[in-house]
C-alpha cells in the first residue's frame, strides 16, 4: 500500500557560483537602510506531492529527480524535506 508524501525541495546556487540577482537584492536592502546585511543568495523552492511504498523509497526517487532535473549539480545544491502527505 503506497503512502502519500509531500516533499519540500530547496535548490541553492553553489557557493562558488556568483549570484548577481542576490547581489542586486542586497543593494536594495542597503537602500532601505539594512547596511549590515552581509550577503543575499536567491534559490528555488519546489513542492512535490508523491506516493511511495515508504519514506526511503520516496527519498530515493526525489534524490534522482533532483540530480537529474530540479538541480544542476554543476552550479546548484539541493536539500529535501519530506513529510507525511495525509
Amino acid at each position, binding site marked *: 500500500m503506497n503512502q502519500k508524501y509531500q516533499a519540500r525541495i530547496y535548490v541553492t546556487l553553489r557557493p*562558488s557560483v*556568483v549570484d*548577481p*540577482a542576490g547581489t542586486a537584492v542586497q543593494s536594495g536592502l542597503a537602500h532601505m537602510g539594512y547596511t549590515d546585511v552581509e550577503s543575499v543568495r536567491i534559490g528555488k523552492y519546489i513542492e512535490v506531492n508523491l506516493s511511495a511504498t515508504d519514506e526511503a523509497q520516496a527519498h530515493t526517487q526525489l534524490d534522482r529527480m533532483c540530480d537529474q*532535473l530540479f538541480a*544542476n549539480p*554543476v*552550479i546548484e545544491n539541493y536539500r529535501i524535506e519530506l513529510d507525511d502527505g495525509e
Partner: protein
Amino acid sequence: MKFGIIVFPGSNCDRDVVYVTRDLLGQPTRTIWHEETDLHDVDVVVIPGGFSYGDYLRCGAIARFSPIMKQVIAHAEQGKYVLGICNGFQVLTEAGLLPGALVRNRDLHFICDRVPLQVEHTDSIWTQGYSNTPTINLPIAHGEGCYHADPDTLDRLESNGQVLFRYAGINPNGSLNNIAGICNEAKNVIGMMPHPERAADPLLGNADGIHLFKSLI
C-alpha cells in the same frame, strides 16, 4: 551533408538555421520535432536558439528530457556532428554533452548586441574556415549566457584546446575566461552563445557566421 534542426516547443531560431543550410548553402535539411525518435538520416544535428519549454526551471533543463535527446546523445557518441546555438548550447550542457553550465548574465540584463569574438584553434571542423579571420563579429541575444565551470574543468578545456570562441572586446555577460563557445574533447560537439545563423547572409551586412556552416560541407 544533411542537416537536422531540432525543434522544441519554444525554439525560435530553427527557421533561421534552415535558411542558412538549405537556402544559402543548398544542403538537404529537415526540421525534427522534439517528439520524433529517429535521426539516422542526418549528418549534422543543430539545436537552435530560443526558449525551449519557456526556459522554466533552468534554460535547457526540460528540453534535455525530450524524446529526441536520446538520439542526439547517441548521434554525438558515434562521433557525428552536433551544433548547439544559444539555447542549444544550454541544452547541450544540461544533457552532459558539453561541460559546465550557463547562468544568469553578470549584469542581469538580457543582452541583444553584436560582439567581437576571437576564434581560437582554427584546426577544428567548426573553425577551420576562420584561419584568415581570427576576429569576427556575431550577434548575441541571451539572458543566461554566463559560462560557468569549476577550475579543473576550465583548465582541461583550455589545455585541450576546447575553447573555440572567446569574447574579444568587453566580456558582455561575465563568462569565465571570456568563453563564448566550446567543444567537447572529441571536437564533434560544439556549443556557442553567439548566433552564426543570424550573420550568414551578406544582405544583412555581416556574413561572418556562414563559414562555421561552410566548414562542415
